[in-house]
């Protein structure tokens, strides 16, 4: 049995259907790329897995967790196992890098002292180690807002690792980065996938990047799966259809 199972998943917003009946099952330990043009439902799909967005219909299950219907503490526990990084990094710009990374531990190991900005020594060491994996320990005391986009995204990955996640959801992680920084971020994600065995589900705009890094690609169009397979199986024809190139 696959670990993440998505059945007939739908999401309706007021006037639009963002996700329209998606069925996928995902193995643990792989990098899955979700491709398609803007508005295809990629972001909504990822947000539903983390439950930042609630599904209108269908179910999401992970092992024996009924992700689509849990609430309260169970939901927070799920979110901490299912880390997420964002296109705009979503760091707290006024806080230093180390605190930003420590924030990742709040969902997993929360106590009242945290609310006063006090974290245990183990967590601090943990955070420093995570930063060091991406050569960022030197800037641990710098304000997050002063970093470059590439650095911010890698701090966000370090923050995600603090959650000790089983899945990492990446919502357009390199769309606002230049090619060099984009490569660095993708390499870092590959590293945590290969070394820690964390499943990665990644929304990508660029087909090239997707083909290079992903073990499996899922193509979305108008909220439906139109392609599901290995990167080699993705023909030019299918990618044209995915990105609607004929209509332009």
């Amino acid at each position, binding site marked *: 049995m696959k670990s993440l199972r998505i059945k007939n998943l739908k999401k309706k917003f007021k006037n639009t259907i963002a996700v329209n009946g998606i069925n996928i099952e995902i193995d643990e330990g792989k990098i899955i790329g979700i491709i398609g043009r803007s508005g295809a439902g990629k972001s909504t799909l990822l947000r539903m897995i*983390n439950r*930042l967005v609630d599904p209108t219909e269908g179910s999401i299950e992970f092992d024996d967790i009924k992700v689509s219907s849990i609430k309260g503490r169970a939901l*927070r*526990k*799920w*979110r*901490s*196992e299912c*880390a*997420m990084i*964002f296109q*705009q990094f*979503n*760091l*707290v*710009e*006024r*806080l230093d890098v180390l*605190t930003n990374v420590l*924030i*990742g531990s*709040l*969902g*997993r190991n*929360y106590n009242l002292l*945290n*609310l006063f*900005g006090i974290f245990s020594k183990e967590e601090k060491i943990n955070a420093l180690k995570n930063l060091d994996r991406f050569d960022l320990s030197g800037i641990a005391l710098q304000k997050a807002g002063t970093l470059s986009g590439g650095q911010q995204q890698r701090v*966000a990955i370090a*923050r*995600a690792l603090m*959650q000790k996640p089983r899945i990492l959801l990446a919502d357009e992680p390199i769309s606002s980065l230049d090619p060099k920084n984009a490569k660095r971020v993708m390499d870092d994600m590959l590293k945590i996938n290969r070394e820690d065995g964390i499943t990665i589900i990644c929304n990508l705009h660029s087909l090239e990047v997707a083909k290079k890094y992903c073990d499996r690609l899922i193509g979305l169009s108008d909220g439906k799966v139109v392609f599901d397979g290995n990167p080699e199986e993705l023909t030019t024809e299918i990618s044209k259809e995915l990105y609607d190139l004929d209509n332009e």
Partner: protein
Amino acid sequence: MSESLIKNHNERLKGLIRKRRFWNIFLSIGILLGLIFSSKIIDINASRLLSGLPRLGDYVAQILPSLETNSLFLDSKTEGSISYWYFNLPKYLHLLFETFNMALVATIIGSSIALFLSFFAAKNTAPNSLIYFITRRTLEFFRGVPEIIFAILFVWALGIGPIAGIIAMMLHTTGSLGKLFSEVHENSDVRPREALKASGGNWFSEMKFGLLPQVLPNLISYILLRFEINIRASTILGFVGAGGIGQELYLVINFNYYEEVSAIIFLIILTVISIDILSGYLRKNIIEAE
């Protein structure tokens, strides 16, 4: 092709200008009418103003001290010296200190309660719309009732003294800062909070790490501004028996101790100016340090 494009655009622009012009004229007439109407109601008339003005001058002339240049720096026993004018200075300073403390305590407690309530009074942080509605209305009540009314009420209930003034100012501070704080929250960037939520953080950590770091400089700036306002307010509150220098001012006005009136007013003005300068300096430093 391009000619018709320009023509169409110009027509649309004309329509827009016509519409805007209509509203401008409509509003101007409305404001003018309102002005005329309200001045009728409050019965402004020029002759009464003109005949009243000299009397204003009379009072000012009466309260001014009679200082003499050759005895300006002599001791408090000599008429015409500054120390004669300010013979009561130790008492004034003590009362001024009381006024200052009233404002300080009211600001600290009031803004703490305001901060707590502001999370429930902002659309994007309130747990649900019922709590939002109740908190908003409560804050409106606290700032809708004038401080002086609260002060009269508490002087009546708790007796004459600074406690009544402190509670009155505290309530008003809670009401107005609560509203301002909640609006700062509403204008904050949602992305850091989203990250906190996505990592399994609870509501408290979302507020502490996702929201507070962003809004804190703004909150501090509002608190300092409120402190300045409260210094002035606490003077006025003394008039109804709520302690501090205002109570003394009310006394000397009623007993027609003319020179003492000006002595106290000058002291108050001096205090307000120095607090203004100090808090402006603090505000600038705190925000720059961030």
